[in-house]
């Protein structure tokens, strides 16, 4: 079974982000980059499917500038077999729909039985690419999955997707798109052998033109802004009994929060 895993390179959560000179993008100097955590769940699940079935191929795909190769190398170090890097300055301002069209075009060329991605990338938090890719491909899609099981013949997958108040279980014919929610698995750390081996694995560079996709974003960033400052808070003094009394009074009378 061939599986495509879509990954995105994003700034580490703890990294300080500053607005760049153009006011629309962040200043990327000094940023620590990581594979978006939800995408790591997707990589891990793809590897587990391959291991369980005893055969198959896992291909990591990323859209991004040169530095996105590091993210692909980490996916290869975890155990992916090869990688595809859509690296094209024309796609620098790609919105979710352009991204979905690009990744769907890769999927069409590769013809996998399954596409896995994270439920959202933790930089722009749109959470749209998985479902949009499925729409472009005309495939079924299940988002926020917490569990999956592919049937023996590799023709369908049973998934549990997290919804408010419970889990909804569906059976999807393959090929399909699934997006991973936290709780699906615990991603492995690359082994030293894996890291060394990753250096020899193929990363194929692809341009938008190779995929027949033109970048015409439907949504664009007009400006990035700093958060409005929160009014200064106050520490409620006194012993616990007095502090609690005063806090409850303030919440009811001043803040009218309860």
């Amino acid at each position, binding site marked *: 079974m061939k599986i495509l895993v879509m990954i995105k390179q994003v700034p580490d*959560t*703890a990294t300080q*982000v500053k*607005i760049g000179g153009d006011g629309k993008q*962040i200043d990327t100097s000094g940023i620590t980059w990581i594979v978006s*955590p939800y995408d790591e769940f997707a990589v891990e699940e793809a590897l587990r499917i391959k291991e369980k079935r005893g055969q198959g191929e896992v291909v990591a795909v990323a859209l991004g500038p040169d530095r996105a190769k590091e993210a692909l190398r980490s996916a290869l170090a975890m155990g992916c077999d090869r990688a595809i890097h859509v690296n094209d300055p024309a796609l620098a301002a790609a919105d*979710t*729909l352009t991204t*979905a069209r690009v990744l769907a075009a890769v999927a069409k060329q590769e013809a996998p039985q399954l596409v896995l991605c994270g439920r959202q990338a*933790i*930089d722009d*938090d*749109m*959470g*749209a690419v998985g*479902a*949009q*890719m499925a*729409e472009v491909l005309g*495939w*079924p*899609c299940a*988002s*926020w999955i917490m569990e999956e099981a592919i049937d023996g013949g590799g023709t369908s997958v*049973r998934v549990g997707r*997290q*919804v*408010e*108040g*419970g*889990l*909804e*279980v*569906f*059976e*999807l014919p393959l090929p*399909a798109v699934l997006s991973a929610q*936290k709780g699906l698995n615990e991603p492995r750390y690359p082994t030293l052998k894996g890291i060394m081996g990753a250096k020899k694995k193929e990363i194929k560079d692809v341009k938008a033109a190779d995929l027949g996709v033109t970048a015409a*974003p*439907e*949504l*664009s960033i*007009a*400006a*990035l*802004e700093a*958060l409005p400052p*929160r009014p200064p*808070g*106050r*520490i*409620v003094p006194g012993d*616990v*009994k007095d502090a*609690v009394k005063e*806090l*409850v009074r303030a*919440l009811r009378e001043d*803040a009218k*929060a309860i």
Partner: protein
Amino acid sequence: MAGALWCMVEDDRKGTPKKVMAEVLGEAARLGGPVEAVWLTDKATDDGLKQLGAWGAAKVWLLEDAGLAPYRGEVWAPPVAELAAKESPKAILAPVTSRQREFMARLAARLGAGLAADSVALAMDGDRLVATRPVYAGKLLSRVAWAKQPWMATLRPNVFKPADAQAGKTAAVERVTVTVPAAQMKFVERREEASTGLPELTEAEIVLSGGRGMKGPENYVILEELGGVIGAAVGASRAAVDAGWRPHRFQIGQTGRTISPKLYMGFGVSGAIQHLAGMRTSKVIVAVNKDPEAPIFKIADYGIVADLFEVVPELTKEFKRLLEK
């Protein structure tokens, strides 16, 4: 009608729109209307239709068919796309819920439209819409605009001002004959979570959150007691979830749920960036922590530097006393 602002209806799966729809419909009216609701359901109730009218929908496009439940994106997107092609709405808005979030993405792809997910503000800039949405773990805000209509956006719950219900205001109901596409995905079952008896995390007006300072899973019962008294949901930080003290569905933060309640109270929560990403748009933030240096105090409106195991029972007692009055 052409140029309307459509509001996709989120319901309780029993034929009643959720109260978050008051926020979406209220915002659509504030943007200038005309406001119309689009409701996909297997069974709408009359009360539900009245409710949408009272919240300001001039019209409800009702797509009612047994095949529309439970939600499947591949089944919902085609009929709505077809209707949109006919009616040319100016905007399509929906609340952020598990299904609307996926559905709106799929519909946007089908329509070739832009989507601003999880918006916290919408405003007209001349004759075009601009959405504001948190990015980079909520550390920055991004203002986004569309190349063309329909402007599609999902709205973060508890952020937009709800419409006041106006009794007697009714919506014209237009039933749309739907050809439900053959579903590729088959529904197997729904597994309900064990009910805590407390509100759902993303819908609650008050949220109590327990962090590493809770010391163990057995201690969440004191937060649940307090939650029971004031009608609050109980969540947890990543540290507590990763330690196995609470199931993942209770996690607040970047890799969990994003909440925006009227009142957030963190107990033994340090305030790591990844937690702040999930609760920083809360209206009033209270922090209780033994460590006066805990970063959460920097964004808290009120703080108590003390042992949560002394503060929580005292809070429960104080609220009980007030409610009995």
